[in-house]
């Protein structure tokens, strides 16, 4: 079953490294849990998923779009912007530093929590040497309830990009 508007988001823990402005690119702190229900209760959040850290669309357009327009999202009441992928928390942290997400977008790992399976939004990229990944999508979540689901079906950003999310808020 694919996640629908009105559903409650799964109660799982992702993993992430909290933003530290003095952290060097080479530093690799141990990721800590990010429990979705605990962190997002009572808040408005955008949860974005990308198939892979350091891949073209993800790095050049998808996540940077959310970093660039983070303030516009905040103005529309968004408290938290979460970018996620199956890559582990160490990789997501390195990617965050490369992209310069700072404290605007939290890049978190699905961390083996089954988050994407529970949403019904996985894709099998084994043939491309990438194993099971998430689809590219964006969710708007209000007090843990899904109010928008945009799942990409083409290689372009049509329903899951920052402009699509802004239009839905």
């Amino acid at each position: 079953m694919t996640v629908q508007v009105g559903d409650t988001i799964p109660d799982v823990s992702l993993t992430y490294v909290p933003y530290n402005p003095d952290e060097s690119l080479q530093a690799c702190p141990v990721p800590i849990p990010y429990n979705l229900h605990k962190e997002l209760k009572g808040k408005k959040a955008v949860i974005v998923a990308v198939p892979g850290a350091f891949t073209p669309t993800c790095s050049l357009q998808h996540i940077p779009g959310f970093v660039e327009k983070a303030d516009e999202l905040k103005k529309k009441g968004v408290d938290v912007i979460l970018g996620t992928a199956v890559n582990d928390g160490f990789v997501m942290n390195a990617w965050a530093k490369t992209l310069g997400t700072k404290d605007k977008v939290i890049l978190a790992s699905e961390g083996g929590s089954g988050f994407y399976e529970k949403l019904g939004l996985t894709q099998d990229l084994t043939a491309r040497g990438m194993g099971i990944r998430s689809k590219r999508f964006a969710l708007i979540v209000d007090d843990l309830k899904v109010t928008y689901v945009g799942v990409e079906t083409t290689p372009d950003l049509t329903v899951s990009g920052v402009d699509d999310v802004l239009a839905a808020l």
Partner: protein
Amino acid sequence: MIQQGDIIPDGTLQYVPYTPNEDLKACPLPQPFKIHENLKGKRAVIFAIPGPFTPACSETHVPGFLHSYDALRAKGVDTVICLSVTDGFVMNAFGKVSGVKDKILMAGDGSAIFTKALGLDQDLTKNNMGIRSKRFAIVIDDLKVSYVGVEQVRGVTVSGAEAVLAKL
């Protein structure tokens, strides 16, 4: 598990060929690296790390091979490959952050097929990392395994550059 004297299994990894001054944010498409086709007739070291951008891998294991590169070449090593169960995009980024340049070929075994064929996979699900490789180093001579060092402890001992050099 792979043993000394075995022929290394064939497999296809993913890597991004080295380009000097490639921007850190650039993400070229990885290409296939076929083990048998590329390593036939050569002396190669394949060392595996559980995860790029993780402490021991970043701080000790990869730098060790980088520092020992010239010594390895002097002992007839043609190719040094760093392997991990992740995709070629991530390995390329890790290679740039680690400054490996053209010395170490950073290769991804994203679906763990080659790692499993070696019998050297491990389940790190409890660490939120899924199936990964063990930490190891293998020396192959014209596809024949002449050394296998699989780490049994935390840190880098039998799988490190010094252990490999001692065997060459």
